[in-house]
């Protein structure tokens, strides 16, 4: 059984590497390398967005919430679906895509810099996002290595190194195309596993009504209102929902999309896949409480659930789905971090195209190696910051992005102050609570408030952007 698991993992990793190598042969320019030539179709964009959104947490860590809180967990991804996906594709995406062509930016940092005509604002965004993404990257590495360790019985170190090496190979060689193509393939595995686990869980609990009755008999709060830990959990849910507007790895998908018309299919595919994945996994994780009354560690409730309700051998597919979820998010994060460094260094003005290819690959390797070394034995300082990354990635940048797209009066100094203040508050509030639940979730409140309130307030008392900047961004043709 162990041998079959290792062979399945090896075949899976080989296929991902092959996709990366094929992508490498399609790269002709620096734009291809970083943004897929800004020519990614609607369906691939949607699948790439969807897989970037959900890491292995959706199969591992989030399951603990379902086991602990029961059916109310179905609320967890309402905001992800309505705001983070549907709203982002209908409201944020098209506007950002059009502006990217008009102003000539190819990343979120470049957008901030060109929209506000301010190098300082761009550097602030780059710093904040790099820190958030780097910590997020390590947390995903730790999560996937632990998952492989538990499910496949492979040592933590080997699991970590094997996963990261393959992800690194197709990210570094295949560039942006390598990212989105592997993500599209991985989305199939994730969806299959989520829907299968949901159907079998509900059959095991005699349907939704049977699940409701069983959970009610255990504890009424597992089956409906009133909920336990309502405030911190809803803050978490809202912060998850706003990731689609603030996480640069996700927002990038709106810059690389081919054209305005591609948003039609992308919106439907992204929404359908997100609903299918999240609703299935939320129902299944609630069912895990009804099916498994005692588990050694709620984080791995799905692992025990799969072993209980699936035929033997299905845990291999579960493992591949977990790997898919992790690697698809990791590749996007690594690519985005490299892109951020490129923007900060201002490389395109210095090097030729060939050197840019070299830079991309060397920097991606350095980022992956650094994060892997930290993930092997995460420093305590990094571990405590894991819980704050969602607040940072969803809360800090949302004000500067939204006001930048839709409000002419927003000034560069206002968004710079907003980014610094909201980032600081995310860390400070979490630190006040010892970086523990519920304070890591409470931290999102002030973060999003500062990000949304400071730009209009400060803009009204500072010098407005120049007429030229406003005309370039908001001119109607």
């Amino acid at each position, binding site marked *: 059984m162990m041998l079959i698991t290792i062979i399945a993992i090896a075949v899976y990793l080989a296929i991902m590497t092959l996709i990366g190598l094929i992508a490498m042969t399609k790269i002709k320019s620096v734009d291809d390398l970083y943004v897929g030539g800004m020519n990614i179709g609607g369906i691939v964009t949607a699948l790439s967005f969807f897989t970037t959104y959900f890491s292995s947490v959706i199969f591992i860590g989030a399951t603990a919430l379902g086991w602990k809180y029961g*059916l*109310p967990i*179905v*609320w967890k991804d*309402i905001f992800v*679906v*309505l705001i983070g*996906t*549907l709203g982002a*594709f*209908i409201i944020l995406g098209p506007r950002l895509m*059009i502006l990217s*062509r*008009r102003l000539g930016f190819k990343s979120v940092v470049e957008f901030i810099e060109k929209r506000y005509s301010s190098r300082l604002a761009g550097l602030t965004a780059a710093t904040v996002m790099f820190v958030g993404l780097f910590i997020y990257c390590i947390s995903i590495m730790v999560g996937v290595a632990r998952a492989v360790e538990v499910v496949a019985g492979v040592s933590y170190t080997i699991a970590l190194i094997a996963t990261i090496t393959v992800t690194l190979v197709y990210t570094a060689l295949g560039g942006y195309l390598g990212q989105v193509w592997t993500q599209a393939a991985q989305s199939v595995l994730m969806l299959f596993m989520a829907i299968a686990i949901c159907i079998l869980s*509900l059959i095991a609990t005699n*349907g*939704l*009504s049977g699940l*409701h*009755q069983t959970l009610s008999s255990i504890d009424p709060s597992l*089956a*409906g*209102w009133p909920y336990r830990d309502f405030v911190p959990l809803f803050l978490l849910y809202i912060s998850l929902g706003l990731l689609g507007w603030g996480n640069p790895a996700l927002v990038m998908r709106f810059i690389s999309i081919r*054209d*305005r*018309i591609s*948003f*039609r*299919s992308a*919106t*439907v595919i*992204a*929404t*359908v896949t997100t*609903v299918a994945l*999240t*609703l299935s996994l939320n129902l299944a994780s609630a069912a895990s409480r009804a099916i498994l009354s005692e588990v050694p560690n709620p984080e791995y409730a799905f692992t025990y659930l799969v072993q209980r309700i699936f035929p033997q051998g299905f845990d291999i597919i579960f493992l591949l789905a977990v790997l898919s979820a992790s690697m698809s998010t990791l590749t996007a994060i690594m690519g985005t971090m490299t892109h951020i460094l490129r923007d900060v260094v201002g490389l395109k003005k210095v090097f030729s195209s060939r050197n840019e290819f070299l830079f991309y690959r060397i920097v991606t390797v350095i980022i992956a190696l650094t994060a892997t070394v930290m993930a092997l034995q995460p420093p305590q300082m990094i571990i405590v910051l894991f819980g704050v990354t969602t607040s940072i990635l969803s809360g800090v940048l949302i004000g500067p992005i939204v006001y930048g797209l839709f409000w002419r009066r927003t000034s560069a100094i206002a968004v710079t102050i907003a980014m610094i203040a909201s980032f600081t508050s995310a860390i400070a509030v979490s630190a006040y609570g010892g970086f523990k639940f519920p304070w890591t979730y409470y931290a999102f409140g002030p973060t999003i408030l500062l990000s949304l309130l400071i730009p209009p307030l400060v803009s009204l008392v500072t010098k407005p952007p120049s007429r030229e900047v406003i005309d370039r961004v908001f*001119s109607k*043709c």
Partner: protein
Amino acid sequence: MVILIVSWDIVLAIALYIIALVISILYYFTSNKKSVEPYNCGEK
């Protein structure tokens, strides 16, 4: 699978997922299929 005895809040949550699906499909059929806003003034 029949929704028989499930509390109102859970039904509401599931309904919101379905509403999102419906909106995305409506968007597909109602958004403009041909004309694209010119990216730069003067571009047709």
